[in-house]
């Protein structure tokens, strides 16, 4: 096969595999991400598929407030930062790694938290960006009241104004687990740490208490508003991801659909392969004619062609998976936690697809080669 055709084939298959892997990888997730391009490309929003009383995740504080505004009056919401941005907490003389969570003043009410000591911070604390915090009571037990009087987070001193019951399980409601060893700060105060930073777009989630609403209702509500937003044209759907595997059946259905889309994409690549390989057969008619003259049977030619295409498919598949990996890494880097599910299964699926398509599509060029009349093609000298 001519190097040009070989290269084209490899590139074609690689691109097919990239597309497929991405679709396949992404398809393993369930979350619709909405991304605002301008003015700050780093602002990445996502609407988390809310579970029955769920939440909406991955946005800037500004956007979280906006979304909260769209919700009906009987739905209460509180912005919450993710717990994963750990801070260095110094209690007394000891350093302690703790979850630091920014929340709205209404958070305690929303989740019905037991205030064991002092008070939860108020709306004023929030507006004034005062340096106050509330800790879970296990920290009080651990360090004692005395020690808590000197409380530093990332080198800044905070006043501990209260403690809440720590073993509440919020994990099912929210991303994260605030059940113990957590520190709650007024969200504005804490958000200063992120504003304008790389993570600004994904630190926020909106905890929602919506009795009587299904998650589909909520989702529709939010999506509708997103679409109606003035800035809607600047928003686009980006890579979603799902960490919630509850709805298996539906997931499978969607996965099958996505696999079908991937297959269609690859079928296009397949048509491309057939085209290139046929062009190759046409171009190399003399070569095939010569081989027939030298005693090659159709099965020999078919074997050679299939071998070549499958070799290209292997190389293209490999290249495609590497490329898809790179694209994924870059994407995940910008999207933060929302990495598409690019894993060994995606890679294997991509490879199998590449081989399958290579093998199937070689049938037609192989037939064409077998039909070549050696007498006719060798007659045209040069």
């Amino acid at each position, binding site marked *: 096969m001519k190097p040009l055709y070989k290269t084209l084939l490899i590139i074609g298959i690689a691109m097919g595999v990239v597309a497929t892997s991405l679709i396949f990888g992404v398809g393993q997730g369930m979350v619709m991400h909405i991304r605002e391009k301008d003015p700050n490309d780093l602002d990445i929003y996502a609407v988390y598929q809310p579970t029955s009383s769920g939440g909406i995740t991955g946005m800037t504080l500004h956007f979280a407030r906006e979304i909260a505004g769209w919700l009906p009056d009987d739905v209460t919401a509180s912005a919450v930062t993710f717990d994963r941005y750990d801070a260095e907490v110094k209690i007394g003389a000891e350093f302690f790694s703790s979850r630091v969570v920014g929340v709205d003043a209404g958070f305690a009410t929303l989740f019905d938290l037991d205030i064991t000591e002092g008070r939860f911070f108020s709306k004023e604390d929030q507006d004034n960006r005062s340096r106050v915090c509330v800790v879970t009571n296990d920290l009080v037990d651990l360090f004692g009241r005395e020690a808590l009087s000197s409380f530093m987070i990332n080198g800044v001193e905070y006043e501990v104004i209260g403690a809440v019951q720590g073993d509440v399980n919020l994990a099912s409601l929210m991303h994260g687990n605030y059940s113990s060893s957590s520190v709650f700060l007024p969200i504005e105060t804490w958000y200063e740490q992120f504003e304008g930073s790389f993570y600004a777009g994904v630190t926020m989630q909106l905890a929602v208490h919506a009795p009587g609403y299904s998650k589909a209702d909520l989702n529709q509500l939010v999506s509708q508003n997103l679409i109606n937003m003035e800035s809607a044209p600047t928003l686009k759907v980006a890579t979603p991801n799902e960490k919630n595997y509850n709805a298996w059946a539906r997931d499978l259905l969607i996965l099958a659909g996505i696999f079908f889309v991937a297959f269609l994409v690859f079928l296009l690549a397949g048509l491309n392969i057939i085209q290139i390989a046929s062009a190759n057969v046409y171009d190399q008619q003399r070569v095939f004619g010569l081989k027939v003259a030298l005693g090659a*049977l159709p099965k020999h030619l078919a074997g050679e062609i299939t071998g070549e295409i499958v070799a290209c498919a292997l190389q293209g598949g490999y290249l495609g998976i590497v490329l898809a990996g790179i694209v994924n890494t870059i994407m995940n880097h910008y999207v933060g936690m929302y990495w598409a599910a690019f894993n060994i299964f995606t890679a294997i699926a991509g490879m199998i697809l590449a081989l399958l398509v290579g093998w199937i599509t070689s049938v037609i060029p192989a037939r064409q080669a077998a039909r070549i009349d050696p007498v006719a093609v060798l007659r045209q000298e040069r």
Partner: protein
Amino acid sequence: MIELISITKVYGQEPNTVTALDRVTLKLNPNELTAVMGPSGSGKTTLLNIIGCLDSATAGEYHLDGENVAGLDLKAKARLRNEMFGFVFQAFNLLPDKTVLDNVMIPSRYSRRPRKEWKPKAMAVLEQMGIADLALRYPDQLSGGQQQRVAIARALVNDPKVILADEPTGNLDSATGREIVDVLKTLADKQGKAVVVVTHDGMVASQAHRLLQMMDGRIIDDSMLDSSSVVFSHPNF
């Protein structure tokens, strides 16, 4: 060994038919270098293709070692081309992306020979053609004469009994052409092959043992080129 009896080849569909061969009767013998001459379109290539089982006759009988070739299927004919005949072309027809050695091994790949014999056999025929040192070169790194030697080596690699060369010197200068004819002649003289060479070049044809002259699909003359019958004269005084 090879016997064509009243072979006719008609191309095309009625009414646009071309009779490329018209009741050709011919016997080929081992140890014989046969030159075929004739104007273009006279059926030389068609004759070669039919002898080489690359094309089949419209009518007539073709006996190869006593067997009627007309009755053979595609697979058997491919096997015959592979084992019985060696083809040499004007345009050399080497594969440019393969080395000389790989080019020579092509017929082995389609043969029943065990794989481990391919390379030694290919090297042996290259040696015989005097170009063993070029085995790892690519065809475009060789002169025309060397390329044609590679093509002859490829034709010989499966020990065929018949070599069919269609204008093998057509792309070569006359000195190189002579060398190639000498090589083909040696195959007839020393290795007992039946060699058929289509040529326009009288210098090439003159080296043959036998000359076939063709015209409009017929053999109009089939004679031995017996040099001893030539009488050289001189002025009387």
